[in-house]
């Protein structure tokens, strides 16, 4: 257990060494929020977002998911670089169990996402409270944080799996972009499910319905906006995403890095 914490600690500290990356990301996320507030709210039809006060209020919980995804995905970029520069040889030579190393790295990615996203979650809670007067209970807040943690761990696992199965940085970035667009644009992070079902082909609408990012965003909306209604499936979806990709990443890290 102690060893896993040390591995998490290392990756966690490295994350905060990329100060300019973090500064850029925060600026981008806040700019996204501002653009949504000023531009999109006026552009998007009120009919589409009638249950959510405005598009801005609808989107705010989704923003936490985009921020969390970007931060949690970064662990993959580092692991890809480690493999290419053979820094992974050092990690594999350490006197610790391989599964401890693998799980430590997956969890580190997850915690990075969660910590990075926390100020944005607080901003979101404030915004949604101002517009809706909904005050989530401590249990609801805890559920939101737990769901976001599972999404973050799943994203970390997904990025690690991609990182060690792509041989070059370019391929990794391409794979990341593909994953990003599929996961985000076939989800309810940016648009409500009704709009997606009416605008996208049925297959993509189905992806959006079961997408764990949709589940995470809608779970947050359920507790922060009061709509859509909470269902246990939302939580199960994000838990399954977190556990499956954590496991896949662990196995891949243990097998693929050792040639």
């Amino acid at each position: 257990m102690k060893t896993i914490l040390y591995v998490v600690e290392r990756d966690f500290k490295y994350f905060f060494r990329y100060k300019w990356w973090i500064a850029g990301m925060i600026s981008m996320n806040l700019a996204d929020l501002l653009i949504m507030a000023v531009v999109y709210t006026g552009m998007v039809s009120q009919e589409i977002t009638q249950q959510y006060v405005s598009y801005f209020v609808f989107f705010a919980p989704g923003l936490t998911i985009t921020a969390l995804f970007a931060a949690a995905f970064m662990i993959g970029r580092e692991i890809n670089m480690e493999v290419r520069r053979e820094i992974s040889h050092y990690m594999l030579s350490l006197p610790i169990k391989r599964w401890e190393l693998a799980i430590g790295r997956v969890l580190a990615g997850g915690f990075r996402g969660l910590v990075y996203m926390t100020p944005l979650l607080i901003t979101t809670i404030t915004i949604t409270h101002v517009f809706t007067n909904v005050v989530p209970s401590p249990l609801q807040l805890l559920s939101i944080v737990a769901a976001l943690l599972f999404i973050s761990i799943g994203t970390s696992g997904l990025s690690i799996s991609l990182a060690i199965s792509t041989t070059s940085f370019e391929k990794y970035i391409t794979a990341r972009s593909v994953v990003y667009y599929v996961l985000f644009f076939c989800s309810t992070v940016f648009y409500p499910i009704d709009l997606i079902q009416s605008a996208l082909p049925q297959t993509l609408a189905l992806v959006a319905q079961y997408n764990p990012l949709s589940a995470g965003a809608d779970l947050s909306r359920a507790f922060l906006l009061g709509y859509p209604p909470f269902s246990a499936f939302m939580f199960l979806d994000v838990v399954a995403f977190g556990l499956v990709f954590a496991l896949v990443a662990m196995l891949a890290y243990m097998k693929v890095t050792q040639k």
Partner: protein
Amino acid sequence: MPTPIIRIQNLTKKFGNLYAVDHLNLDIYDGEILGLLGPNGAGKTTTLLMLTTVIKPTEGTAYIGPYDITHQTDKSRTLIGMAFQEPKLLWVSTPWAILDWHAKICGLPTNERKKRVKWALEELELWNDRHKTVHVFSGGMRKRVEIAKILIQRPKIAIVDEPTAQIDIVGKHKIWNMLRDLRDEGSTILLATNELYEADVLSDRVAIIHKGKLLVCDEPKKLKDTIPGGDVIEVVLKENITQEHLAELKNTKRVVNILTIKPNHLKIYLNQAEEILPQITEFFMKAQIPIATIQMNEPSLDDVFAHYTGLTIEEAQTK
């Protein structure tokens, strides 16, 4: 009979059709410094990576203490620490952070950890730069950070791959002394190097490896003694020697072998050189080939390498 702490048995690694390590058999004894000597591409690093369980053998195995590296990988690594040839450092990190975390993951208690990290950074003259990111460091400084890892860890088996590459001569001697101290404190050291002098001064035994195969392994002195014609006369001539004269010289009594480094630069391997030296100089005088310099040497590990491979280590590297 000393106890082997590493037993390498038929260890083999193939990359495609190439044997990087070819059925290697070697015992490494508890408390010794074993120099694994060979040119670049000889299979040294691949062997070390297999021993640290970073890469899997294609065939054969090795035992680290009682643990089989193919089946007990996690346990094998508990006895090992490795300093890599190319420093394995994330460039956004600092020496202090790298070494402190390394000590932590190796299980050192807090007080001991801080003490050892401080000691290593001071000894390796990195203390003043301990909070600078390593991307501003020179190659030699990065290499010192890499070496510091095993000096702090003090593993039962320390594996060091080209430990003094890119390091100045003063730094080399310091690191050699630190490795000797590590050995004296109970570690076994497996040193991979292509520097003959380093292997000679530091190793209790030297294993010469070429094209993935072990050629010979023994104490440096014994290896030198195994060369027929243990003494060497090195002659630089003012003119090139002809093939006829070379053949004639080879037939001279007590001359065992002649290595032609250049047509005017010869290494003559012979027995009892001090008795035959006048005869050799007389030979060149009679042949009317003026001598530029002549010196009598004991054989070096380069000679041992040349004896077993027919190549100097530089030639082996280029081929």
